[in-house]
């Protein structure tokens, strides 16, 4: 406020600064220098790759071949020189790009690609065989007993889970989000309180 304002510094640049190569190890000046490490590495890689693949591209005279090699190397060095000096490690950028390109279609779960199982049809051809008891009871209708229905659904915990709190309509910020569905997906999260459920019902009613 009105008091003294102190200037506080970050020291990242003091420790990490772009390193350039401008002289050979004997102290001689490198023509066109200085070069960034990226440029040096890039040039070396291009030269090595090209020298090992001469069969693919070296079709002309020696003079032409040398010109092509020099030209491409120069172009790569020039292009790499256009990178901003404080840019990220190019290997890390490439790794990230590669990672993004090979990202699995459905995302990853537990570190492994998630594969959506295509819809399958379950064929069922059933015939029902009456038990001996039933045969007997059919034979003697007076002895028929009615079994109590088993609440099959009650044994499935998913169905007992409660609905979460609804999305808040006005909570959409900056960009209008589509109105949420009246029945949000069930979650395995904390079970909402009675009041929250009442809220959910009220909100669902309002949205309709």
């Amino acid at each position, binding site marked *: *406020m*009105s*008091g003294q*304002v*102190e*200037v*506080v*510094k*970050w*020291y*990242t*640049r*003091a*420790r990490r*600064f772009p*390193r*350039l190569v*401008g*002289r050979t190890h004997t102290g001689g*000046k490198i023509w066109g*220098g*200085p070069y960034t490490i990226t440029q040096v590495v890039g040039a070396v890689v291009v030269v090595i790759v090209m020298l090992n693949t001469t069969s693919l591209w070296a079709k002309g005279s020696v003079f032409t071949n040398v010109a092509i090699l020099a030209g491409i190397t120069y172009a790569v060095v020039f292009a790499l020189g256009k990178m901003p000096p404080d840019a*990220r*490690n190019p290997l*890390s*950028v490439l790794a*990230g*790009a590669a990672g*993004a*390109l090979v*990202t699995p*279609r*459905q*995302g*990853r*779960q537990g*570190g492994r690609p*998630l594969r959506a199982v295509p819809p399958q049809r379950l064929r069922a051809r059933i015939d029902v065989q009456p038990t001996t008891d039933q045969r007997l009871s059919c034979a003697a209708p007076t002895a028929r007993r009615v079994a109590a229905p088993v609440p099959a659904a009650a044994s499935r915990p*998913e169905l007992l889970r409660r609905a*979460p*709190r609804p*999305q*808040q*309509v*006005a*909570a959409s*910020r*900056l*960009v209008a*989000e589509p109105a*949420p569905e009246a029945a949000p*997906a*069930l*979650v*395995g*999260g*904390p079970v909402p*309180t009675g009041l*929250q459920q009442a*809220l959910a019902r009220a909100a669902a009613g309002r949205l309709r």
Partner: protein
Amino acid sequence: MRSGTASMTTGVRWTYSGAPWADFVLTALPYGLRPDKDKATVRMLHTALLRALPGESLLLGVCASMDPAAVVDKMLTGIDPASHPQWAAECQATLDWLDEIGPGKRIYWLSVPLATTSPLQVVRQGVRAALSGLGDVLALPRTPVPPAEVARRTKQAAAIGAAIPAPFRPSAATPAQMMWLHQHAVRRGLFQDLDLPASGGDVAGDLLAPASGCVLSDVVLDEGAMADHDGATARAGTLTRRHLKVTDASAIGAGEGSYQALSVIAGVPTDGFAFPGGEVIGRIDECGLDVDWAMRLSVRAASSVIPANNRALNNLNEQYDQRSAEVSHATSALDRIGSALAEYAKALDADQLEVETQATIILAVAGANAESARAQGAALADHFSRMGYKLAAPLGYQQALWKAMQPGIAASRAVREFAQITTSTALAATVPLASTALGSAGGSLLGLNIAAGPMLAPGITCGPTSPVFHDLEGASDADVSGSMVVAGELGAGKTATLMKLAGDVADKGGQLVIADRTAKGEWAEWAKAIPGAVVVDAAAPTLSLDPLRVFGIRVGSAVMASFLAPLLNVSPTSERGVLVADVLDPAYLTEHDLDSSGALVAHLLHGCALEGAHELGRLVSAFARRDLGRVIFDASIPALKTTAPAMVMRTHGLALPSREELEHAHLFSQMGLEKIYGRALNALIAALARRVCFADTSTLAAFVISELHAMTISFEGEREVSEFVRDGRKHRAVLLADDHDPMGGISSVTLRGLIPARILMRQRDKTLARRSLAWLDLDPDDEALIEMVRTATSPTTDGVMVPEHRRGEATMRDMAGNVGRIKIMLPARDHRRAAITAGGTAAARTPAP
């Protein structure tokens, strides 16, 4: 993604990678509009916190949406909704608008990996973690963490907790809270948060018995939301889609995805930042978005930094050599690096306890669709660039950044790549754990905390916005009054604020005595909304304020005496003073059957045998004969019943003396009868209010004074008001008052000090703005604060109108002395709101919906 956590107990989580982590929930420190000295203290505590965390750690600040029901619950504390249907209705209506605003708060979390020193333990720990992972793959039953290990790690975590500076109030995170954090990260931006489970509710025992490993749900992480895109270009599109789709794998049905845009601070201002003012993380809410931040910290002792710094120095020297042949500005750039390095070495050297902190600051914004996440990410980058920081959303690293925001997962390469280096003292200046909390824990919902910035549009708050309460019952732990004074210029919203609070008193079954000096009778108009409210108009009375009839002879005679003293200007020991005391003796009044002021005057004039009674009678009847005197002396008007829920005393048209007239004998002697009467009547109203409000200690009662200076200008009035505030808390009675110049209106320092809760609304006059700031205990000479009060509080767009969402803004000092910014919200129910806006000067100040 499988979460990194294998087992949890209160305060500790065991991970699949081996090392257990200790988790704490921290409390932010009050910052906001505090003076620089306090800010420096908060920064010092942050420095201490960073120094207490050697090695890796993770500091999180996540936006949690608050459950409106939990907020409204605070309004209902100690009140039975069934017996106060009006209040219950207000709470119900509040629930609705809160639901639409979506109030939020920030939760601060610290997670620290626990060190393992003995090699045997390292092996054991690794084996256990590996077996745990293998067991999960084979779907074997989980083996519990041995009790001895639990005890040892809990103790180790407690030791870390003890090293954290106490003001941060570290509390060991419960498994329920850890689970909340996980769910929050999965559903970020979907506004599905439940409230953070309370600390202490220890379900550790249940959760640690590892019947199943499904406490933290599985998560599907989809870089670039591939699942949403089909076709040949879908894959290439990931190069531009810098967001992550996070889905809960265990959600049944088509679980909606949370689209999260994660970014990391990749560039910092090379020239540094200012403190105070540059708290990039502490003031992050000012960007207007719900941003979750994570600070991956790596803290190293200065001694172990020396080699790294020396290496940098060597590299630098080599660079001078490498670039010596160059014709450019290279040398000056290298010089700058050199001086920064020297400065850094000096900073590390200057303080023996100084440490190096490498912080990777990761930020996450999220929405329910990709476009929302992208737009928010862009807005956030824009906000940071204005502060000199560069944000990067590195391609292909969205997943890695998301994981880096989870406790229990070791720092990855991506984290280390973006680490920013500085000292603990410097990093502390970003004040990550800054709170702008304001108001009391419950009571009346005054409005919204707009510390981060005003509302952006109707219903859209700037960042996570919490509600501000004011407890009219006062602070329960300390003997602090719930009284409040509102200051501000005309039309700034003083009356509306008071009407809101007064309405709350009425809804809670309390009683109101209102001294309304406004010519329009705003309060009389407003009181129509209160069933059973009565209006006493001093100019045209339909109800009488005659103390003898209102309170009966016993109490009324004492009130009458305090009314007659300033009216007749008698000293108690003078001849006439003794006569007044004799006549007003309850026994005398009963004996002569004098049950009204009118009868008393008649008795003095015609039937009293005491010496000088006739002269006294003539003097009193000089007032009683006048129109203004009817409200006391006209026996034909029915008396006010003090059981009414709201009593409005209109005193417009009542002339009042100035301070000068009261202080200078020659002016005093020339004062007109109207002014003498006005002064006495105001004192009478104050005395009456005190008796009514103090009568029943079981009911909340409020004495509302519009234009406080009118009441405090006379010594009697000021004394009555002071006593009211002083004793009010014991009787559950509060004073609610407004004034345009609080320093002038409450000239008594004692009275000012007695009312700790103060609200300052817009004040465009510079001098008054300064005085008002001093009243709030802020620096009156701070230009920034003056401008805030003058132009940044409910500003007018065209010089006349204030946009609806900017109305009711104010600077507030709460009962605890915290000062912050607030937007006052009108009552939630339409008819209450209409009653306020219908009254007059207060323009429509509807809440957001």
